[in-house]
């Protein structure tokens, strides 16, 4: 029970990396399936498909960054974990939540938009830039969540 604060903080880091990572895996998977469908018929579009498939992968990276910063703030990476009260731990947990939740959902939805964009370039490959823009717009909310999580993690008193 003494380490409950630390437990909550680590749980927050795990959620940020875990949920954003799962979301990205699903998003990249959905876009990848659509990409494979297109490449079966038009293998020459590999480069364009690859960019669209990568886009939902960024949320996993953001989650990883938040987790690293959080673990660094609580001293776990340096090898001397801070003694956190349970309320401090919960605060760190809460700080990681925007990235975990927004990361998961934005990655899945970005994957869907990317898959639709793949279907769009299947019919007309000159529309790739528009497809990328549509997919990238979903990213905005993952970036906002990343900023909120980073600001929160840096401003929690330890």
């Amino acid at each position: 029970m003494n380490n409950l604060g630390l437990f909550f903080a680590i749980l927050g880091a795990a959620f940020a990396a875990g949920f954003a990572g799962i979301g990205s895996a699903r998003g990249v998977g959905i876009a990848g399936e659509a990409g494979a469908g297109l490449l079966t018929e038009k293998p020459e579009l590999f480069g364009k498909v690859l960019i669209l498939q990568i886009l939902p992968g960024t949320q996993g990276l953001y989650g990883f960054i938040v987790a690293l910063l959080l673990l660094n703030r609580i001293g776990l990476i340096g090898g001397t974990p801070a003694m956190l009260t349970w309320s401090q731990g919960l605060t760190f947990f809460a700080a990681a939540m925007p990235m975990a939740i927004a990361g998961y959902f934005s990655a899945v939805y970005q994957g869907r938009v990317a898959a639709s964009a793949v279907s769009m370039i299947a019919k007309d490959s000159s529309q790739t830039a528009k497809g990328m823009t549509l997919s990238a717009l979903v990213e905005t909310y993952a970036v906002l969540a990343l900023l909120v999580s980073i600001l929160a993690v840096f401003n929690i008193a330890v």
Partner: protein
Amino acid sequence: MRDTNYAYCVARVRAAESKMLSEDDFSRLKGFKNTFEAIRFLKEKGWTSSDKDNIREVISFEKENLWKLLNESVPDKNELGVLCTLNDFFNIKAAVKCLLTDTPFENYIMMPTTLDVALLKDNLLKRDFYAAFKDKGETAEKAYNTAVKSESGQSTEIIIDRAAIDYMARYGENIDDKVTSKVCSFISDTSNIKIALRCVLTGKDESFINEAIGLCRSLSREKLVASAIKGKDELYAYLDTTAYKDGAKLFEKSFSDFEKWCDERLIEIASESRYTSFSFSPVCCYYYKKLTEIKNVNMILSIISAFSESVERQGEADV
């Protein structure tokens, strides 16, 4: 099943759709003087990678390719069943006729079909209709028994056609996919309209009409039957109040105009899936579009073939 499971299949189908013949291609195709040049043009357009050189082979190869693509792409193969429902019922008709006349059935199989063609012959010889036609076995057995007892081809055809219409209507009612549901409804409704109009034109009686017209989705079956019994004018008057009024007017002119209207309207309905990326409907849409393309190419090639033959004959006669 998750809708995202369709991502692969829809992207592949969209890519295949972009390779379909354009209006310009059709205009060029119509301009060829002989089938050799026309088939070579189709090959350039990616129609067939094989060395098929006669019309029938080119057409059947393209149909095979279409079915192969759908089979490879669709996550749940059972869903493809709806696309070959009409072929399955046609095969029942052919099987019953072949059994009665001791004709080999293999030459009359309409592809694609959900039936296991390899086992079909054995099962038919054993008169095991349920093994041969699975969920359509009851219809096949009833049609066969009727044909044996009554020796009436028309009664047999009514049973099978009615079962096909009911099957499509029920399938459309139960499927979640809105566009596919509309497509099924359209097919069952237009089939009913065709039957009703033919019954009126050939002066069929009330019991025949009642037996022949199947389940309707966007039409009222009762009204359709009642108006068909009353006669041509009443039937046209009723159809004029439905979504099929444009088609019915064309039927008055010629049956082929009505068929053309049905094809175009079917594609229009199926094309409602053009904004969908995660469902079965884009597959359904592509299937009907490609089938219409194949049908049109077949027609053009046949005309070119007939024309070039007549020119050759004329040349020989002149010589």
